[in-house]
């Protein structure tokens, strides 16, 4: 379980994350939603130790993040941020192999190769695994990076807007893969996501942030209501139920 305890972080005078406490269930997909600038990405960065909190603690399975060795954390928690432009000449397989670094420290074993193959298969990248990253489209690159995160084989996977640059087909593909990772392998997945319909259809829990504070949290059914969404985004969104899934119609 990930426990965020009274975490705050400010840049200058502006509190970007303001006294946030939240517990994240194991083996589920939790989506972080909220308007731009609500502090979602910052919170994800703090949980994954890319940033340190000004006050408060983050505990992963009862261990304080800032007191755990970096290399041990890398086997427990993986984070993928939104911007991943590389000037390196790297093939897809090379990139995915980097996911094994916490285990192999650069010397890949047979076991590592198995994980790499599996991650590539999971993201359906087999036929382009020898292509170089600069030959790929934005969406393919994004999938390659997610494959690296999967190869890292961590219990917790944190993704910051993984659907950026992706068309519907690949967005759905990635969300389905995440679903499988959670359901079949019991991974705990935290994502920052903008499209609330993707959050509604594919996640188990939703945490809504606004101005650095938690505005609402709960199961999909609790959060995806016109009333709560109005509180979060300040706009009216009728909600229709289609095939037992709640879809927000926010095109007014």
């Amino acid at each position: 379980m990930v426990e965020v305890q009274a975490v705050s972080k400010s840049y200058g005078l502006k509190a970007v994350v303001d006294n946030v406490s939240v517990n994240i269930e194991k083996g589920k997909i939790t989506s972080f939603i909220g308007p731009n600038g609500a502090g979602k990405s910052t919170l994800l960065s703090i949980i994954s130790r890319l940033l340190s909190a000004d006050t408060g603690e983050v505990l992963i399975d009862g261990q304080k993040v800032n007191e755990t060795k970096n290399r041990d954390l890398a086997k427990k928690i993986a984070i993928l941020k939104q911007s991943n432009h590389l000037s390196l000449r790297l093939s897809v397989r090379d990139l995915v192999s980097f996911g094994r670094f916490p285990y192999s420290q650069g010397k890949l074993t047979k076991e590592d190769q198995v994980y790499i193959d599996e991650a590539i298969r999971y993201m359906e990248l087999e036929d382009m695994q020898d292509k170089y990253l600069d030959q790929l489209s934005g969406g393919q690159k994004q999938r390659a990076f997610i494959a690296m995160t999967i190869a890292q084989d961590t219990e917790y996977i944190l993704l910051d807007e993984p659907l950026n640059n992706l068309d519907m087909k690949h967005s759905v593909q990635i969300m389905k893969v995440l679903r499988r990772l959670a359901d079949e392998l019991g991974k705990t997945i935290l994502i920052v996501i903008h499209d609330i319909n993707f959050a509604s259809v594919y996640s188990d829990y939703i945490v809504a942030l606004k101005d650095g504070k938690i505005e609402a949290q709960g199961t999909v059914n609790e959060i995806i209501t016109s009333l709560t969404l109005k509180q979060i985004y300040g706009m009216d969104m009728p909600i229709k139920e289609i095939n037992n899934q709640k879809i927000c119609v926010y095109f007014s």
Partner: protein
Amino acid sequence: MREKSKLIFLLILAGASIAGYMFVELGPNWDYALPRRAEKIAAIVLTGTVIAIATLLFQTVTNNRILTPSIIGLDSLYMLVQTTLVFFLGSTSLTVMNKQINFAISIGFMVVFALILYRLLFRREGQNIYFLLLLGLIFGTFFGSFTSFMQVLIDPNEFQIIQDRMFASFNNIQTEVLIMATILTGATLLYLTKFVKYLDVLSLGKETAINLGVDYDYTVKRLLVIIAILISVATALVGPITFLGLLVVNVAYEMFKTYKHSTLIVASALVSIVALAAGQLLVEHVFTFSTQLSVIINFIGGIYFIYLLLRESRT
């Protein structure tokens, strides 16, 4: 295994350049010429190696392939130290003072400076590495201005002596510090082997490196110190010559098209040795000392860079 054959090719080329430098037009007094040439070629090999490795490390830490460590003002600091010594102690200090002590002072200042820059960078978290470059650039300009200020004040004869040190020259290598420099470089490179495995990961960027379990601050700090030591070794031996690093590292990247630093380190060092040894051979036997190696390097390097730019813009 094309990588391996390319490395062997480079190794042979480097060996040939060194042998060429040692034995071309040796003349009858070989027992006089040979030890002198050996001393010089040793300095050339050492300088080539440290410049190439320092630049490669710096480019990896900054994730930028067109930077050299000179941007953070390390070689202007070297000039400042030399000028300050002459300013306060007189030009005799450079000639009279023990070269080893001078060398130690220069290296000490450069390492301390790198550490201070580093402190400024990581005092607040989340600072961009470009902040370090900007700070270094400002410091470098400051050192440069301060150096010329002192140079204007001192006796013109003394200025002449400093001027000798301002330009990289392989005709005037400080061979007295060669042994000390070799030992220092050896120790530094040995220490570097501890970090080689992290270099590949660092080139993926800060966030990915942390995600993959690299202690980013710890590693970058040590790499910066290693860079500072390597650069000061090269600068103390022959003078400011960082453009060479930019050139050879990019040639190594172009030749090997890999991200693996274990290969790149060796490759760029070899390219660098070839460039310097063959270049010096040309200077001494074709141009008969009418020009300097640094001029040739800058000339060829400039052309190569225009070629790179043109090729990049076409694709």
